[in-house]
């Protein structure tokens, strides 16, 4: 119990550092590219346009208001991808600093996931624009979105911690993970609909073992379909998020004292 109190105290002590790190990430991201913030809206919009053309015109699939369908899933997936990717490199990337100063190492991982989350929230404007342009209906369920984002944020923190510590010991994780991410994307119904054209085993695999399915299904429900998410995916989402967090924190805790020898 004391330990927990101590942890929260340090977290509080370094809250300004986290804020500063997050604002650094955003500043640099927007400063580096010519269009700045506009780019983080333009980017999902443009990919959406391309995918919409490919998917509906060339492949002739029929999904109603495809742009909104796509974006409501893709934004979450992109957030997961960016945040875990960045989190993975967060400890190794700050090696020079960590060698000299005592700073709780998870601060950097946490800051990365957080800044990606903020970035995603900011680029929600893209979704808004698309919904306005396509005259999509605004369902009141959309107000539940923060809950979904929170679940995913917790999940990403857990995964991020796990990857960050692993990357300290095995640098090639980065390559392996990027291959996995590609596979993961195709195994998640983002650009397609998980309908009866897919075999049964695929349905079971995706719904049973792909955490992203839970978050994307929830977000689709509240944005696209206007449904309250079913209890299975809603509570499943929370459960997965916390299980991942426990795994991440545990693995990080266990090995953090050894980092210094490998960075």
């Amino acid at each position, binding site marked *: 119990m004391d330990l927990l109190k101590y942890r929260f105290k340090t977290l509080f*002590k*370094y809250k*300004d*550092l986290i*804020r*500063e*790190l997050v604002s*650094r990430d955003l*500043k*640099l991201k927007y*400063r*580096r590219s010519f269009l700045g913030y506009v780019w983080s809206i333009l980017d999902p919009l443009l990919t959406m346009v391309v995918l919409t053309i490919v998917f509906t015109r060339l492949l002739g699939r029929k999904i109603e208001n495809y742009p909104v369908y796509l974006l409501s899933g893709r934004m979450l997936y992109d957030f997961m991808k960016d945040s875990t990717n960045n989190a993975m490199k967060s400890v190794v990337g*700050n*090696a*020079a*600093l*960590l*060698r*000299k*100063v*005592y*700073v709780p190492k998870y601060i950097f991982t946490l800051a990365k996931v957080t800044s990606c989350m903020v970035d995603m929230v900011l680029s929600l404007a893209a979704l808004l624009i698309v919904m306005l342009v396509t005259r999509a209906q605004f369902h009141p369920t959309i107000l539940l979105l923060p809950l979904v984002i929170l679940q995913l944020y917790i999940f990403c923190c857990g995964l991020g911690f796990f990857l960050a510590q692993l990357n300290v*010991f*095995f*640098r*090639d*994780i980065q390559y*392996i993970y990027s291959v996995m991410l590609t596979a993961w994307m195709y195994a998640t119904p983002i650009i397609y609909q998980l309908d009866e054209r897919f075999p049964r085993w695929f349905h079971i695999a995706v719904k049973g073992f792909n955490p992203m399915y839970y978050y994307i299904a929830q977000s689709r429900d509240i944005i696209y379909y206007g449904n309250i998410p079913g209890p299975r995916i809603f509570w499943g989402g929370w459960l997965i998020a916390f299980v991942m967090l426990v795994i991440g924190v545990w693995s990080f805790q266990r090995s953090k*004292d050894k980092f*210094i*020898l*490998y960075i």
Partner: protein
Amino acid sequence: MSKYAVEVENVKIRFNLASEKVDNLKEYAIKLMKRELMFQEFIALQDISLKIKKGESWGLVGANGSGKSTLLKTISGILQPYEGIVKVNGRIAPLIELGAGIDPDLTARENIFLNGMVLGHSREFMEKHFDEIVEFSNLEKFLDSPVKNFSSGMKARLGFAVATVVNPDILVVDEVLEVGDMRFRRRCNERMQQMLSGGTTLLYVSHNIESVRNLCQYAVWLDEGKMRMVGPASEVCDAYAEEQETQLRKRQAEKRELLRREGKKYDYLIVGAGLYGAVFARELTRRGKRCLVIDKRSHIGGNIYTEDVDGIQVHKYGAHIFHTSDKKIWKYVNRYADFNNYINSPVAVYKDELYNLPFNMNTFSRLWGLKKPQEVQAKIAEQIADLHITEPKNLEEQALSLVGRDVYEKLIKGYTEKQWGRDCRELPAFIIQRLPLRFTYNNNYFNDFYQGIPRGGYTKMMEKLLVNIDVMLETDFFEYRKEHPDMFKKVVYTGMIDEYFDYCYGHLEYRSVRFETERVEEANYQGNAVVNYTDREVPYTRIIEHKHFEPEEEQENPKDYSIISKEYSMEWKPGIDPYYPVNDEKNNALYEKYRALAEQEKKVIFGGRLGSYRYYDMDKVIGAAIADSAKELNIWIQ
């Protein structure tokens, strides 16, 4: 609260490292399958116990990999001890270079905030102290440019400013202050002193022992992870420096032994461990040539050799004062010695009168009781005019026509006759070309910009010049050449040029001097380093009291005795140490003939005062050696 800032008790740091670095999963998996994954225990620190009181300054010294940084990291909390306890009371601020860990793309302003927060400050705190930091770092103009464009000195400045905004309880400095310009380093030192007096505890790691000595009260010497010595910084540093030196010497000796066993030849054989030979050897060695220096004497240094006699540096071959106007040469010698601010102002004793030298207003006012330069100039002009000398036929007439009767009779005549062993009327006029007269009250014998004596003597300087170079003493060149004709490729010869050619055209002539050195039981024998005796009746030309060349040493270690040398001029005969070449027409012509022979010797370079038969001041010898060695190596120097 405890009075200790840091307590370290029986700390042991053990690493479990893979014997080969495996940092990717693929190799890990392969090694795991082949069962090749071996771990090795590595003990980085052992039995470390330290108690550091608040406000103390501690330095850590030791070789690379001795555990200095590991200990610092353990105290900072970056590393966890495997065994033992580390207790820290207070806030630790490590000094980190900005840009090392924080985004170099961010501006200085942003980095200041980030860095401050990394150190655990709040945003509010940083805002309050921002201006202070900027002021200390002196980087107002660059606040909004990215740190990646900064020089390492600027980064250090910023880092230092942030780390020291408030007096941290414990400041940890690890090799950071070595960058930056002098001014910044001085400011850092001042700031650190200020913090130390304000109660900050300092932990300092540096390769530079001098800075540890200056900054720290105590030091720990770490050797292979163990504490070798703890105590006052100066003692620990001394012991460590000494050990380093012996290690170095041992390594060199081993290397030399190895080369010798392999029968490796030297590129150059340098004959004469005097100033010319030593500088030449240094320059060649610096550029990767292997040199052997031999000397027939039993010591290095040639004629500038100084010998420690009861704690006094005795100039064995006559008083040597280094003086030059050449800035490059001055810088060069200062790399090898610390020069004091000795200024040569000899005095002359004539019967029971005493005069300042060189001839200046002090001398003249003593002679004639005159005060104004105009009066003195008129007096001398009058004395010269009275003599009606138009064409001086000998030295006496030459001198008279330059300075008049009084100065000549009292200060020149007797001294010159003792020097040359002949009457001034029998000496040729050319010996004295000019007799500079100074119409100011200035007793500085030399007109050069720079002047001084190496502290601790010339021999120490020569040792430094010859570090890493093989030296064989009591070895005569002509014998060595007979015994080891193929140990070397080329020769640099600084002995007598006529001897090299076996005097085939006859002997070049020299003047010589001899010294009678004695210890007197008086703390201060004559009150000056050099006193000339200008009347003929006193047999010696001057007396040197050696301790006055190093007044600072005398101040530190006063002695109630003194060492003096009486200098006698004498005729030179073959076999006696040559001192001054006699550069008259006959000898110069003879030298030219030897020089022509020397030019035929393609594998021998002749140099130094004996090899080129001329009087050289030390600075000129050094200049010549540097230039000749550069020519030999085909290097251009400006």
